[in-house]
């Protein structure tokens, strides 16, 4: 059974609070819930939490034959299905509209934005390439699963290291991690997704990283994926409340500054984790 939509008092209270720039969890309107990244013992396993929203991302690589039309490129596939575990909103089998949006956005942010250098995943042209599988598990939905999933996905890719391979002629040797240090993926840039929620009242300013209640009461979402180099990868505002053109641009400018903070945070966290890891190098 789907939970009922928020009650009238809840709705009115949230709108009133937002009008005064107050949020229920004490954040500023443009404040992100600070992400908590927990790394697993394996490389490429990350659990990302934004407040109570939690997503696990895991990367693994195997060798496959490349697609005939792209013999020099490796593959990256993203597997995500939102199970009813995250929230009773979701059903197995029939994807909800939100699920489609999340899946498509993940595809655009992580795959189509060319974050990963696919050519570097080629081992032997036309014969052997790396196939990266990014699997996302949505553990709980407390709002803004999209940003959480994108963050988990890109951090997992940055965290992952593939085994070193050696090609002599047509002979491919894969070195186990204990023999040779595994190599990180060649990453062109690191896109992060930021979602803003807009409300029916025009004077209410948009909020960044909406909670579940805010998301359900919002009159439209706008997601911006970009990297710290001020390059936009995806801008998506699918309908919802109409905005003035300057409003759109100011939201993008906010995203530009926020993403820098996020990028620094992720880099720090990865460095921290790497320090604690003992990887044999011979």
């Amino acid at each position, binding site marked *: 059974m789907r*939970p*009922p*939509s*928020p*009650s*009238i*008092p*809840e*709705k*009115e*209270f949230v709108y*009133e*609070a937002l009008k*005064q720039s*107050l*949020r*229920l*969890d*004490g954040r500023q309107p443009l404040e992100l819930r600070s992400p908590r990244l927990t790394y697993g013992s394996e490389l490429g396993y990350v659990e990302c939490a934004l407040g109570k929203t939690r997503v696990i991302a895991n990367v693994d690589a195997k060798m496959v034959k490349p697609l005939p039309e792209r013999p020099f490129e490796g593959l990256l596939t993203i597997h995500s299905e939102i199970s009813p575990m995250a929230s009773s909103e979701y059903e197995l089998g029939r994807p909800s509209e939100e699920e489609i949006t999340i899946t498509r956005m993940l595809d655009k942010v992580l795959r189509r934005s060319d974050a990963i250098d696919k050519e570097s995943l080629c081992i032997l042209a036309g014969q052997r390439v790396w196939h990266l599988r990014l699997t996302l598990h949505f553990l709980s939905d407390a709002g803004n699963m999209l940003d959480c999933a994108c963050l988990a996905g890109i951090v997992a890719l940055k965290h992952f290291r593939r085994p070193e391979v050696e090609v002599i002629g047509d002979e491919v040797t894969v070195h186990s991690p204990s023999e040779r240090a595994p190599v990180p993926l060649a990453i062109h840039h690191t896109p992060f997704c930021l979602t803003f929620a807009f409300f029916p009242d025009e004077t209410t300013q948009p909020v960044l990283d909406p909670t579940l209640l805010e998301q359900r009461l919002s009159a439209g979402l706008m997601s911006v994926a970009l990297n710290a180099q001020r390059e936009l990868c995806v801008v998506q505002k699918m309908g919802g409340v109409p905005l003035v053109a300057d409003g759109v641009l100011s939201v993008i400018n906010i995203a530009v500054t926020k993403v820098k903070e996020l990028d620094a945070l992720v880099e720090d966290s990865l460095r921290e984790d790497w320090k604690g890891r003992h990887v044999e190098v011979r």
Partner: protein
Amino acid sequence: MSIVVPGEHVPAQHVNLKLGPGLIQLSQGSTSSATPKSSIISTRAGSLYHSANGSKWWVESNARRYVPAPQESVIGIVTQKAGEGFRVDIGSAHPASLDGLAFEGASKRNRPNLKIGSLVYARVSLAHKDMEPELECFDAQTRKAEGFGELKSGFMVRCSLGMCRKLLDPNHFLLPLLGAKVSLEVAVGMNGRVWINSKETRHTIAISRCIEAADPDGKGMEEGEIKKFLGTLDA
């Protein structure tokens, strides 16, 4: 008090024994005579309590899913108008029904004006495992509201069922502590929902955050911590 897990034998014995939630008595036939243990076992994990004279026993535990029990007060959201009455979501497995006439002063002519999405404070009048729960917003004998009815404005906080029971305990520190700081109105439902209202939005937010922080299912802050936490809030 002791901790029990499901399936444990409970040494409850009394001539006039009454079992509360989390305990059942196995039928005599199923307990073989070889085991002289008591025939009462726990069905839930939690702490075991009994009344001073040992006549009433129950297990206290915390959960989030509400199972309706008669005479408990709950907070529900109206989800549908169904003929004469309303369908109300009270967080239980099935929606409850609320008769349009179960209000103070309600008659065939004068029906309560509840919209879809309204919050109501009601009492469970019927809870049976084979039937939909039923609610009422008045005392069936006196036909007076007794505080039940629609909850207007304010905000609804969701918390664990254990937190609700704590808030209803007059000796619990939280509400007096908050009440000393700001003037507030509270309606506690046994179904993990608490309605709060105060004059200012930021006060209501502070109260809701304190309730969430004190929830044993969440951070489970104690009195001292809550005082400190309240100090950091803009209230």
